[in-house]
């Protein structure tokens, strides 16, 4: 039974990790443009930033 005292907090820790990850995605604005993100992931040219040109063949 004592194993519960280890496993239960551990699984809670895993749950908390995913909650923090969710909080991070929210802060990073990952839900602002679902359609645009769906298009960007398929196209190398759409990666933003200074390495934009470098990504092109």
């Amino acid at each position, binding site marked *: 039974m004592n194993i519960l005292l280890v496993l*239960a907090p551990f699984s809670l820790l895993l749950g*908390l990790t995913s909650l923090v990850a*969710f909080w991070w995605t929210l802060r990073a604005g990952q839900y602002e443009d679902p359609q645009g993100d769906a*298009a960007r992931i398929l196209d190398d040219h759409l990666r933003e930033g200074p390495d934009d040109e470098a990504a092109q063949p």
Partner: protein
Amino acid sequence: MSALAVRDLSAFVTRDTEARGRLELLVSGARCGACLARIEKAARETPGVEAARFNLTTSKLSVTLAPRAGDAADIVDALDAAGYPATPFDPSQAIEKEDQEGRSLALALGVAAFGAGNVMMFTVPVWAGLFGQELDGTTRQVMYWFAAAVATPCALFAGMPFFRSAWSSLRRRRANMDVPISIGVILTLIVSFSETLQQGEHAYFDAAVTLLFLLLIGRYLDHKLRLRARSAARDLLALQTPSATRLDADGVERTVPIRDVEVGDRLVVVPGDRIPVDAMVEDGTSDLDNALISGETAAVLAGPGARTHAGALNLSGRLVLRAVARSEDSAVAAIARLMEAGAQSRSAYVRLADKAAALYVPIVHTLALLTFAGVWAIGLGPREALLRAAAVLIVTCPCALGLAVPAVQIVASGRLFRRGILVKSGAALERLSEVTHVVFDKTGVLTEGRPRLMDAPASVIAMAAPLARASRHPLARSLAEAAGCGEVATDIVEVAGMGVEGVIDGRTARLGRAAFVGVDSGAAAETELWFGFEGDTKVRFAFQDSLREDTRAAVEALHAMGIWVEVVSGDVAGPVEAAATQAGIHRWTAGVTPFEKVSIVERLQASGRKVLMVGDGLNDAAALSKAHASMAPGSAVDASQNAADLVFSGGLWAVSDAIGVARQARRRVLENFAFSALYNMLAAPAAMLGLINPFVAALAMSGSSLVVILNAMRMNLGKGRT
């Protein structure tokens, strides 16, 4: 647009302390990833642009300009050249605070989801124990303490939106739905702690947090609906006339936001643009289309010294105006006052959910109190009494009620949105569903709002067509449209407000007003054009504002729904009667002022009818805000779109469609209420008798919420086009 004019859009750029600029544009026409790539490329390749990011979901392009460099007009031109027309946002509206409320609701939802999921780890074993499986007291204690450690912080955090709203409602001495929710959650936590301390079996930590999770889903959906409607309404405004062209003392034409126009400014209005504020003509002559202001279809000739109203469409000549009023003062003040009064009377409307809450809150709280007093009185002790009272509050907690309305309305408005109908609020849908009477404006609503050539011999049309193709006047344009493509006359001279002269096959010809062409027609109708070669016989073309294609079908659909239809127009009797008869409407009133429109609507409502007003002009705005519900087409003036509950693009079928969906939504909401009532009638007595344990409470709560959501989704499966 005049070639010499310098377009200056710098008023739309905000610069920070390092002079780095920010600009937001609404870009139309983007549909897929390829469009996205082309738009960002066009913007990034414009000189002075540091970064550009396009949001495909909201069609908004955010551009960062390098310090002291970059020109907004260049970006607009580059996007135009790429095939995507762009409109800059007014900075005061565009860079608004981000959707903070949505984020904090989403975070609360995430925390509640975490809590609801993880607390089950500890409560499910206890539930098993409730049915006689082996679980000794100590283990149960440990489980409950774990559950408390997870659920309490989660419930307190996720419950904040409800606690805040309940508190502010109590301070206004009213009880909204959040009051029983807050009391329920807090009482549940307290009772569960005391049970755990006393080594009891009935702790409801899981119920408290699961309840909040389900309610937050409803709250989040409701928020999304309002947000989408708000931003769509803002986009529509940006697409209207957000800017005016000001002619400054240095001779440069600057594009400025409308609210920056001061009395005395000189403004340039080219054909095809709307007059931004009330003004006096200084220079130039042109025909003005006042249809949006007065509902009249006939164009009015305006020359130097003439007074023009904001919203009039310049048809034929370039005008230089001197502003005589600021934008806020331009709409006739009386109309604005009427609109305010109308909006007030409408805000008194009590929404279905609030009606339900007003009934529900006192009943449930009385029941809980009676349970507490009763159980104590029959000698079961204060602990059992408190436990049963808490159970009553938990099982009757308005999960289903809280979801009943938002879930249905988000499905309904999403369905309308896909058909090009924008619903501004959930309350609008509720009011729309009660409509018994539809009042249409004529111009721009029943009709297309632009003249069409009435039947003329094809040979005559072909003769005049070369001149018509050279003119910008709407009558000439519709003549050119009727003729199709072909040659254009040479040596064109367009005389603003009169007509156009040119050479066809070596012969000079004129197209325009009777007097211009050289005909002495006594009563010169405004909806006619004359054409003739010099010294030859003259021919007359008549035009009429024709009905939208689907008007008749839309009116029939409304009749079939048992709705009364009538036309109230500011236009003269002849065209109104013709349009009404063609559309199959028997009741019509012509030549009414904006104030009479309001009183007609008021009279109808006083006789117990629920009126839906459909209009597009400034003259309809007051009636729109007075009516029980209102709709405006996307082509309407700002004031009307603001006053209307729903804005539709596309055909008139939107009216019957919207009413149909609204009625269906109301039916679903009432079904959901009925189900909730039935559920509570079973659950409350069970809780009072002490038949509810934590397992039953958890099942009943999530089960009832699920039923309500599934019932709302049924709207998508329902009959009708999608």
